[in-house]
């Protein structure tokens, strides 16, 4: 029987060398998924590498170009009430506030959620809609991966052995952007049956869906229809049809694939109209 060892390095390089030397080692962030999996005997890692003491993974920083760098260890609770999120970036805070319950949000982190890549999770559609990039650090150094390429499938990401998510970078956003994250779940705190992330501003419409495919669903055709039709009811209907066609939902305990497809037009319209109403405020 092997023994699970625990490390809490202070330096990012030390965490990476521990992880790249042993494929059965696992990083620990908020533990809100990892420890639940340990409790369910779904995992028995050889080593747990806690990321809590690594300063380089913490904090939110606005960069000179207006982009926002969010450290991987930033919790959902911090993002949900962060005053650093402005313009379209507010979409991320709206989604963070809808994750699980307060006790989960206090511990769970954006880096852990992104690395876990649950198709029903709340951040992935937001990051795809905002064209965020995922910053990863590994034995070969640092690289950035567009969110649309980072999420590759059910619990599958572009991360390589020994690589960890170090930050999420949101590109600059126009201050006038209005946003809405619409989540439909069976009960409060559950994962989404369907979620819709919308950001609107003068020059564009961004929309992505969560929980209706192995990765977030975004459609250039749908966005073009919405833009050309100036968000009219007719344009929303046509765009929804494109999004339904681009989706690939499954039947599960949260709803059948057919049910999810029926929800798409309704939730898309609701999300767009709610975002617009916030703009009018």
């Amino acid at each position, binding site marked *: 029987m092997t023994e*699970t060892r625990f490390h809490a390095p202070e330096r990012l390089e030390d965490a990476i060398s521990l992880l790249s030397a042993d494929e059965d080692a696992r990083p620990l962030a908020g533990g*809100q998924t990892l*420890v*639940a999996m340990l409790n369910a005997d779904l995992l028995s890692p050889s080593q*747990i590498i806690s990321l*809590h003491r690594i300063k380089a993974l913490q904090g939110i920083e606005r960069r000179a170009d207006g982009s926002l760098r969010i450290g991987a260890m930033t919790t959902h609770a911090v993002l949900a009430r962060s005053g650093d999120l402005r313009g379209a970036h507010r979409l991320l805070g709206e989604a963070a506030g809808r994750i*699980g319950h*307060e006790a989960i949000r206090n*511990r769970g982190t954006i880096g852990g959620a992104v690395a876990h890549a649950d198709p029903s999770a709340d951040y992935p559609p937001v990051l795809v809609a905002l064209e965020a990039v995922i910053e990863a650090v590994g034995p070969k150094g640092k690289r950035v991966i567009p969110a649309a390429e980072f999420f590759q499938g059910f619990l599958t990401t572009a991360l390589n052995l020994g690589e960890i998510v170090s930050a999420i970078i949101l590109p600059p956003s126009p201050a006038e952007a209005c946003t809405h994250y619409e989540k439909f779940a069976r009960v409060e705190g559950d994962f989404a049956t369907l979620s819709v992330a919308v950001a609107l501003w003068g020059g564009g419409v961004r929309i992505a869906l969560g929980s209706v495919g192995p990765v977030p669903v975004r459609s250039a055709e749908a966005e073009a229809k919405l833009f050309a039709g100036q968000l009219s009811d007719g344009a929303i209907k046509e765009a929804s049809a494109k999004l339904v066609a681009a989706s690939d939902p499954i039947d599960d305990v949260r709803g059948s694939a057919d049910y999810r497809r029926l929800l798409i037009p309704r939730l898309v319209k609701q999300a767009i109209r709610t975002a617009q109403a916030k703009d009018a405020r």
Partner: protein
Amino acid sequence: MSERVAVDLKVNGTTHRVSVPAMRTLMAVLRDDLGLTGTKNACDQGVCGSCTVLIDGAPARACLALAVALPGIAITTVEGLAQGDTLSPVQQAFLDAGAIQCGFCMPGMIIQATALLAENKRPSEDDIRHSISGNLCRCSGYTKVIEAISLAASRLTP
């Protein structure tokens, strides 16, 4: 199995040096190593809320935290709320409102409500419902729980 690690856990103001396997959850350490069985074990998946404790003042699931990752960090369990024989205002309100049925979910509810009232002195009924949405009561006695939390709020901030 996992190696044992010595860790100083600061629970209810007292530091305990325990030697625990790396994978042991805070819940298991509280209950089995420290004998603090007020923190209840039910789902072990973070869903039910019965093991809710305060970690650094904020509600968290004890079943989803590894004890070894919490050295020196203030942890408050339901046993830490009363002052000697005097119950905390939230505990007293739960008794007075008759909010207790089988009692199993109560420690988690009381911890969650304590955290709510520390941040929000005059919660609306909606705020209260929202706050305890992650604490399941299988007796389904939520109405009295909501009354109890309102009562505690009105006593704390008349």
